[in-house]
């Protein structure tokens, strides 16, 4: 008999959850309330807010006149523990004192998202502040992000 009442208690717990969520979600569904009542995040439409210091996809910054900030100093490629940054430098004909990257490729398949490259950069040319969690591609080759992909997220 005692066990029977315990069983009824269990039913009360689940029924309480069910009715509370049903009520809250119905109100939300018809637009009467902002509170969903359930923990589900309907991902493609809704996104969780990321923390400000989270490290996700990289981006290359430009100066005010539109040139890349990167001067192809190789510090990021040196700092990278995964060795996923490939840089080819060239002379900048307009600014004889500076170099600029002809190619700047980050292999996101190798990248460990440690952020050392960002810390190493003396020109503040590379940041990881895009907060884009979609990092998947259908081909490995598409994971090689070049200048174009890195500047235009």
């Amino acid at each position, binding site marked *: 008999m005692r066990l029977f009442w315990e069983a009824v208690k269990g*039913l009360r717990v*689940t029924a309480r959850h*069910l009715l509370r*969520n049903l009520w809250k979600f119905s109100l939300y569904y018809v637009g009467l309330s902002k509170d969903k009542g*359930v923990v*589900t995040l309907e991902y493609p439409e809704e996104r969780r807010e990321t923390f400000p210091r989270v490290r996700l996809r990289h981006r290359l910054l430009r100066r005010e006149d539109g040139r890349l900030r990167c001067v192809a100093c190789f510090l990021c490629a040196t700092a990278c523990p995964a060795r996923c940054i490939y840089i080819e430098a060239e002379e900048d004909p307009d600014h004889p004192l500076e170099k600029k990257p002809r190619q700047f490729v980050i292999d996101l398949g190798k990248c460990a998202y440690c952020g050392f490259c960002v810390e190493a950069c003396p020109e503040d040319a590379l940041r990881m502040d895009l907060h884009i969690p979609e990092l998947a591609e259908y081909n490995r080759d598409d994971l090689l992000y070049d200048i174009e992909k890195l500047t235009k997220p």
Partner: protein
Amino acid sequence: MVWAIVKAVVVFSWALVTVLYITLLERKESALIQDRIGANRAEVLGLRLNGFFQPFADALKMFFKEDYIPPFVDRPFYMLAPLFALVFALVPVGAIPLADSVKIGERVVSLSVIGSNVGVVLVLSLLSLGIYGVILGGYGSRNKYGLVGGMRATAQVISYEVALGLSLIGVLLVFPSLDLNEIVHMQNRYILGGWVPRWGIFLQPLAAVLFLIAGMAENKRVPFDLPEGESEIIGYFLEYSGMKFGMFFVADFVEVLLLAALFTTFFLGGYNPPYLFPDGFHFPWGGSWLLSPVWVRVVQFITFNIKLWIMVWFLLLVRWTYPRYRYDQLMDLGWKNLVPLSIVNIIITAGIMAVIK
């Protein structure tokens, strides 16, 4: 003959659509219990309606899945088993009266497919035939785990059949008829000054609880789902895939529907809402609302569906509340608790009946 076919088509399509939406209710209810939303992505013409079309998407998926037959199986038994499981779950649904019988001229047409006057016996016997699907599935798979699972399921179903039958004896003592329609009629009288209907659950509360527990064990749902035990204990349908597995799956839900319908018929006054008589509502506080016979049938059908869904809701709530029984606990519950209790129930009921007479 034509009428029988029409009735069969209508009732079984009603049953299958209800079963489809029981699967949806199961997904949604479990989701809400666990603070989730549940399937809501199936889309028809840009309409989602929070998962309204999900059951059809599920059914389509089942149809188009690869149906792999392992090379070592015993083909005839293997092919027959899902058919047995589904058919013997579906046929008893036809014996359940969905509304009062209709008089067309001289003939009385009952609004169930099998308007039999031994409906109770018919339903119970067909229910016990259902284990052929289980045991053939286990045997025909030629897989020792499948066979053991099938044996386990058979032992469970057969043991609980005893408790199921014995708990119904008390009901049959109070409503002395084997005709389901007649049992529903007898529940439409009123006691305590005409306020409370003579429903089985008020006259036979113990039998109602026993019937519910035994019925849940009978259709192998959690907390008695050892035969299926989807991921932990291997069940009898482990060699099945595609639509054959789908048939076992549908049979499972048809049995939920059947149990809910039987409980409604035996204990919740069947298709009659309170205070509905063949010529309309007569309320105990005076006043009445007369309805034509056709409208009475419509009200009865709707009432039956409402009661059915309440029962299904309760069964699914039970399913998502309790953990699974261990096998010896299961047998203990069946033989040492349910069977003695139902015998006690029979003795007490019979004693009271004798004293009243």
